[in-house]
C-alpha cells in the first residue's frame, strides 16, 4: 500500500523507515509514528469493528481515549488484545490484527447484527431469552458470549516479566504538556525532588500537536528545550511512557511505566513496571479530551475528532483524507481547518453549529454557520456528509469538535465530584481533591495555552510553598490566549438515523431516550442499562454527551443530572503488571527447614505448609507408593527410633520478671508455677472462648520461657502476645522475640530414642530417666561443645526427645542423628508419618483446632482455669458453648476393618435420614495405622464421650461412600501413656 495519507512535516524521523504488518499485510511507517498514524499513512481507514453491531470503524482519536482502533498487538503468547493503536509506538516487525469480527475485517459475518439492530435496543436482553428455562446456559448465553467480548487472549502463559518499585518525591507532576512542563520547571529549579510523568513517549502534550508558539519558538521546540533542562537536573525524574493511573490515600499514586512495549523484544527485561509513587504534593496537569457531536451515522471510518486530525497532521505528517470537512460547535475546531490547509490538505467546508462569524479567516474554506451534519454515507470509508439543510457534500474525512472536557479523572479517585462550568460547557475539578493535589492547565479548565503555562507555574509554586520550599524566580514564557468559545451543542436533533454516543459499546441517542422512557433516569442507571461509558475507553469521549442528552430528555440541567464517578485506573493496566514478580514459584517466598538439603539428598518428597516446604516422607528403594514409605516410617519409629525436623513450629523467646504471670493470662492453664527445667503443654483460647493454638512452653530460667506454637499460627500468636503485652497488661516486664528460624529442632522418637540421643549429647550431661524425666528440659552441648536445647516431650506417644541446635548446624545435625542412629535402624520421618502417629495418639491439630471448636469439644475443658484470669475464659462459658450435647473429639474405626475412612465424612445415627437436622458430626482426620493394621480416624460427634462402642454411619456423598464406624477412644495406641515415661 502507498503512503496515501502521508503529508509533509511532523515530528517523525523520515530517515528511519519501519516495516510492520496489519492483518498480515506489510506496511511502512517511520520512527515516531504510532500504529494509528502509520495505518492512516498507509490509507488504512478501516481498523476494527464495534462491540454490538459490528459496524466498520476507523481511528477516532490520537490518544488513550480511543474507542475504535483497538487491535490485537503481537502474536503467539505475546498477543495483547484490545490495544489502542493510537498509543502503540511503531517498531520494526510489529504485527497487529483487527478484532471482534467473524470472517475478515472487511466482511464480518456478525455485521448482520447491524441489520437487526431495531431488535437489539438498549436492555433488550433483559426482556427475552427466558424460555425455555434451560436454554439460557445451553443456547442463548453461549451465542451472546461468543459474539460479545473484543479481543482474544492467547490462552498461553504471559511470557513477559514485570516489575514493581517505590518512588518518593516532594512534587509529582502528572502530565508533561505545557502546564506540566511549566510546573516541573518551576519546582525543579528550587531543588525540590520532582517526578514528572507522562503517558506519551514524547513529552510536550498538545504542544506537539499544535502550531502555537511558546517564547517565540514552536511549542514542540520549547518542550524539547524544557525537557532538556529537566533531564539534566539530579533532583528530577522524568518518566515518559508512564501513566499515573490512580490516586490513592495520603498522596500515594499508582503509575505504570511501559519499558519495552515500544521494542520488538523485551530481551528478558521487565516489560512494564508498576510504580507506587509516594508524593508529598502533586500537580495534576493531565490536559483535556475532545468530545464528539452525535449525528446520524457519525461512526464511519474517516470521521475523527478535530483535535486528533490536527495531531495527525502536525505531529505525524498524516491526513485521514484529501477532502476534509470540519464540523464544530466551538472556536477550537477552526484550527484544524487552518492547520490542514496550511499543510496543503483541501478543507472544503467548516460547518459551525453556532450562528456567528467565522473564528478564523480562511480563504477557500466555506463557512456554513448555524447548520449541522445530519447524516453520512460510506460504509467502510466516508464518502459524503449530509447537512441539516439537506445539502450533500462529498468528503473523504470529517473532523468533528464538540468541545473539550478537562481530564478530571484523578481528582475523583477519592471524594472529589467535578463541578459544571457553563462557559466551558464542561466539568472541572471540584469538591475535595485527593490530599496534596492541585490541578493545573486544561485539566483545571485553563483552556488556552497562555493560561495553562501560567497555571502550571502558579500551582507548582503554591505546592512547594506549602512544603516550606521557596521557589526561585521563574518567568512564564510568552504564549497566546487562543479563542476558545464553545456552544452547548451535543447532538443533532434533526438526525433520523442512529447517532452514536458511545462508539465502542454502540450506544446511540435513541438508546438513551429509551432508557429515560423506561425509568432509568439516574446517570448510574442509564450507564448500567445502556452500557454507556462501560467500554475499554471508560466513556472518555462519550459520557458528557450522554449526560447532556439525558438531561435534555429529563428536562433537567447537566449539573442536576450529575456525573458518574471516575475510579482507578485512568487507563487500563495489565493484570500482569499489577502482579509484578509474584507468579509461578515466585508467588510467595519459600521457607526451607534447616535440614532441607539433607532431605533432598535422602529421597524426601516435600509438601507446602504455609510458606514452608517440609519433608512429607522419605522414599527408599523398592517402595512403590507413598503409603509404603509412610507405613515404614511410622512403624519403625514405634519399633525403634525415628527422626523428624520440627523446626517449623513457632518459637517465641519470652523473658522478663513477669513472664510467668503473663503466660498465665494468655494460656488457659497455669505456667507461673512451672519449675525451671520443665515443659508444659499449653492451650490458648481466643477471647471468644474458642481454641486458638496449642504447644509446649519450657521454662529455661527463672525469667525465661520458650514457647512453641503451631506452624500455621506462629506469626498470629506472636501478634496476639504483643497485643496482650502492650495493650492489656502494659506494665508487665515481659519481652518477646521470635526465634523460630534460629533453632533447628528435631524430634527423636521411639523406644531407642534415649540410646540415640545419648550418642550425640556430650557425656557430661546426665539425661537418665531420673535426671531428665518426661517433660524435662535444659541446656546441653552436643557433638563436642555445640550449645543445644533438649526437651523431653512427645507428640508420637513414644519415649521421645526434641533437640534444638543453632540453625546453622541443622543440616549437619540431621545427618549426624541418622548416622548415629544407623545401629538402631533409625528412620527419618516426614509430616505424613508424624500425622499417622498423632492420630494414633488422638492429638488434636489443625483439622481439629479449626477455629470452631472449644476446649470442651476436644476434651480439654478442664484445662480452662477458672481460678485465674485468662483470655477467652469468660466467653467460653456461654450457654450454647457448654451444652450437654456438645460435640466431642473421639476415635473411629471401620466396622469392616478393610475399609478406608474418609476425612470430611459426616456421621449419622443408624437409621436416620441423611439431612442436616440429623447430622451428628464429622470425621476430622484419618490415617492408616500400620501399627494396628487398619484405618483409624478422629472426629467430632455429639455427646461422643458417652457413646463409646456405638456404631454410626460415616457418609461421604461427594465420594458416594457410606460405611459403619465404631466410636472408640481417641487414644488408639498406648492409651495409658506408659511408653513416653520410659
Amino acid at each position, binding site marked *: 500500500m502507498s503512503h496515501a495519507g502521508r503529508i509533509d512535516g511532523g515530528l517523525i524521523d523520515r530517515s528511519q523507515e519501519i516495516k510492520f504488518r496489519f492483518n498480515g499485510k506489510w506496511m511502512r511507517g517511520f520512527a515516531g509514528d504510532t500504529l494509528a498514524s502509520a495505518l492512516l499513512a498507509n490509507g488504512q481507514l478501516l481498523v476494527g469493528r464495534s462491540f454490538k453491531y459490528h459496524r466498520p470503524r476507523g481511528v477516532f482519536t490520537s490518544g488513550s481515549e480511543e474507542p475504535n482502533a483497538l487491535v490485537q498487538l503481537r502474536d503467539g503468547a505475546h498477543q495483547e488484545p484490545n490495544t489502542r493503536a493510537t498509543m502503540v509506538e511503531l517498531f520494526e516487525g510489529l504485527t497487529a490484527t483487527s478484532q471482534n469480527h467473524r470472517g475478515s475485517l472487511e466482511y464480518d459475518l456478525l455485521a448482520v447484527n447491524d441489520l437487526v439492530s431495531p431488535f437489539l435496543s438498549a436492555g433488550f436482553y433483559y426482556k427475552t431469552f427466558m424460555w425455555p428455562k434451560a436454554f439460557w446456559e445451553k443456547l442463548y448465553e453461549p451465542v451472546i458470549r461468543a459474539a460479545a467480548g473484543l479481543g482474544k487472549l492467547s490462552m498461553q502463559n504471559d511470557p513477559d516479566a514485570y516489575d514493581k518499585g517505590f518512588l518518593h518525591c516532594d512534587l509529582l507532576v502528572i502530565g508533561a504538556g505545557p502546564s506540566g512542563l511549566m510546573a516541573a520547571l518551576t519546582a525543579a529549579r528550587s531543588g525540590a525532588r520532582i517526578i514528572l510523568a507522562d503517558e506519551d513517549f514524547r513529552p510536550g502534550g498538545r504542544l506537539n500537536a499544535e502550531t502555537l508558539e511558546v517564547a517565540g519558538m514552536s511549542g514542540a521546540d520549547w518542550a524539547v528545550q524544557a525537557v532538556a533542562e529537566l533531564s539534566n537536573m539530579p533532583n528530577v525524574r522524568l518518566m515518559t511512557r508512564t501513566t499515573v493511573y490512580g490516586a*490513592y*490515600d*495520603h*498522596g*500515594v499514586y499508582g503509575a505504570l511505566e511501559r519499558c519495552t512495549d515500544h521494542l520488538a523484544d523485551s530481551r528478558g527485561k521487565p516489560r512494564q513496571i508498576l510504580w507506587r509513587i*509516594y508524593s508529598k504534593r502533586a500537580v495534576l496537569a493531565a490536559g483535556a479530551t475532545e468530545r464528539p457531536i452525535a449525528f446520524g451515522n457519525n461512526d464511519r471510518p474517516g470521521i475523527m475528532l478535530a483535535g486528533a486530525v490536527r495531531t495527525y497532521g502536525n505531529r505525524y505528517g498524516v491526513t485521514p483524507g484529501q477532502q476534509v470537512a470540519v464540523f464544530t460547535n466551538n472556536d477550537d475546531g477552526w484550527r484544524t481547518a487552518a492547520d490542514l490547509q496550511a499543510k496543503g490538505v483541501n478543507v472544503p467546508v467548516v460547518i459551525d453549529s453556532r450562528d456567528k462569524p467565522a473564528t478564523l479567516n480562511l480563504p477557500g474554506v466555506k463557512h456554513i454557520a448555524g447548520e449541522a451534519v445530519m447524516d453520512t454515507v460510506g460504509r467502510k470509508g466516508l464518502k459524503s456528509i449530509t447537512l441539516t439543510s439537506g445539502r450533500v457534500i462529498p468528503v473523504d474525512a470529517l473532523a468533528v469538535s464538540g468541545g473539550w472536557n478537562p481530564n478530571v479523572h484523578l481528582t475523583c479517585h*477519592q*471524594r472529589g465530584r467535578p463541578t459544571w462550568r457553563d462557559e466551558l460547557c464542561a466539568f472541572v475539578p471540584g469538591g*475535595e481533591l485527593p*490530599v496534596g493535589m492541585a490541578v493545573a492547565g486544561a485539566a483545571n479548565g485553563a483552556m488556552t495555552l497562555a493560561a495553562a503555562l501560567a497555571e502550571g507555574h502558579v500551582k507548582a509554586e503554591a505546592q512547594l510553598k506549602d512544603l516550606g520550599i521557596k521557589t526561585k524566580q521563574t518567568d512564564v514564557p510568552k504564549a497566546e490566549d487562543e479563542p476558545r468559545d464553545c456552544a452547548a451543542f451535543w447532538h443533532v436533533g434533526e438526525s433520523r438515523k442512529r447517532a452514536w454516543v458511545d462508539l465502542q459499546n454502540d450506544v446511540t441517542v435513541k438508546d438513551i431516550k429509551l432508557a429515560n422512557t423506561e425509568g432509568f433516569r439516574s446517570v448510574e442507571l442509564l450507564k448500567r442499562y445502556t452500557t454507556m461509558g462501560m467500554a475499554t475507553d471508560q466513556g472518555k469521549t462519550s459520557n458528557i454527551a450522554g449526560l447532556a442528552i439525558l438531561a435534555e430528555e429529563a428536562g433537567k440541567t447537566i449539573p442536576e443530572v450529575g456525573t458518574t464517578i471516575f475510579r482507578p485506573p485512568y487507563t487500563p493496566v495489565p493484570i500482569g503488571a499489577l502482579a509484578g514478580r509474584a507468579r509461578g514459584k515466585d508467588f510467595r517466598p519459600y521457607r526451607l527447614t534447616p535440614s532441607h538439603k539433607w532431605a533432598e539428598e535422602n529421597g524426601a518428597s516435600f509438601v507446602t505448609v504455609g510458606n514452608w516446604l517440609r519433608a512429607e516422607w522419605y522414599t527408599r528403594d523398592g517402595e512403590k507408593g507413598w503409603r509404603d514409605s509412610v507405613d515404614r516410617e511410622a512403624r519403625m519409629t514405634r519399633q525403634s527410633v525415628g527422626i523428624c525436623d520440627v523446626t517449623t513450629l513457632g518459637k517465641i523467646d519470652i523473658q522478663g520478671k*513477669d513472664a510467668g*504471670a503473663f503466660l498465665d493470662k494468655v494460656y488457659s492453664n497455669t505456667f507461673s508455677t512451672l519449675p525451671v527445667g520443665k515443659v508444659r503443654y499449653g492451650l490458648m483460647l481466643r*477471647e*471468644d472462648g474458642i481454641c486458638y493454638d496449642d504447644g509446649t512452653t519450657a521454662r529455661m530460667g527463672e525469667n525465661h520461657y520458650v514457647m512453641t506454637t503451631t506452624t500455621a499460627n506462629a*506469626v498470629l500468636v506472636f*501478634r496476639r502476645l*504483643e*497485643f496482650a503485652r*502492650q*495493650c*492489656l*497488661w*502494659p*506494665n*508487665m516486664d515481659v519481652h518477646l522475640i521470635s526465634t523460630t528460624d534460629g533453632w533447628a529442632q528435631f524430634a527423636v522418637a521411639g523406644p531407642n530414642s534415649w540410646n540415640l540421643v545419648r550418642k550425640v549429647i556430650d557425656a557430661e550431661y546426665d539425661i537418665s530417666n531420673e535426671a531428665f524425666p518426661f517433660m524435662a528440659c535444659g541446656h546441653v552441648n552436643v557433638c563436642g561443645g555445640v550449645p543445644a536445647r533438649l526437651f523431653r516431650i512427645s507428640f508420637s506417644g513414644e519415649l521421645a526427645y526434641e533437640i534444638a541446635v543453632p540453625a546453622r548446624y541443622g543440616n549437619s545435625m540431621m545427618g549426624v542423628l541418622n548416622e548415629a542412629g544407623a545401629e538402631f535402624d533409625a528412620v527419618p520421618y516426614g509430616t505424613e508419618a508424624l500425622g499417622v502417629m498423632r492420630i494414633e495418639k488422638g492429638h488434636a491439630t489443625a483439622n481439629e483446632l479449626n477455629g470452631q471448636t472449644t476446649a470442651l469439644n476436644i476434651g480439654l475443658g478442664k484445662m480452662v482455669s477458672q481460678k485465674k*484470669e485468662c483470655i477467652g*475464659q*469468660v*466467653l467460653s*462459658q*456461654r450457654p450454647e458453648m457448654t451444652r450437654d450435647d456438645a460435640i466431642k473429639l473421639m476415635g473411629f474405626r471401620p466396622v469392616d476393618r478393610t475399609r478406608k475412612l474418609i476425612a470430611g465424612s459426616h456421621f449419622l445415627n443408624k437409621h436416620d435420614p441423611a439431612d442436616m437436622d440429623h447430622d451428628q458430626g464429622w470425621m476430622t482426620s484419618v490415617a492408616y495405622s500400620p501399627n494396628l493394621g487398619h484405618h483409624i480416624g478422629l472426629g467430632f460427634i455429639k455427646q461422643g464421650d458417652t457413646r463409646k462402642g456405638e456404631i454410626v454411619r460415616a457418609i461421604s456423598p461427594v465420594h458416594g461412600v457410606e460405611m459403619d464406624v465404631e466410636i472408640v477412644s481417641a487414644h488408639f495406641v498406648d492409651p495409658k501413656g506408659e511408653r513416653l515415661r520410659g
Partner: protein
Amino acid sequence: MIINHPLLGPRDAAEFVYLGDASLIDRPDWQAEDAMDQFHAYGYLRDNPAGEHKELWYHEQGDRSWLVVTRNTLTHEITNVEIARDVARARGRDK
C-alpha cells in the same frame, strides 16, 4: 495509606496489621458481677462510626509496636497516632 508513626515517621500502611476499635484496650474485669455482659459488649458490639475512629494497628513489619490511630472512616484522613502502650497506661491498665 500512610501512617505517621510517632517514633519512625511516615510508613506505608502495608507494613501494619489492622485489628479494630481501640476500645479493645478496655478489656473488662473478669470478676465483675456482670462480666458476661461486659465481655459480650467488649468482644462483639462496635460503635462503627462514620467519621473519626480510634483504632488499633500493629507495626508488624516495623518496630512491633501497637498504635492507636485516629482516622476518619469517611475520608481516611489520619489526625493522630499514639503508642498504644502509652494509651493503655493512661487508661489505667496495669499488670
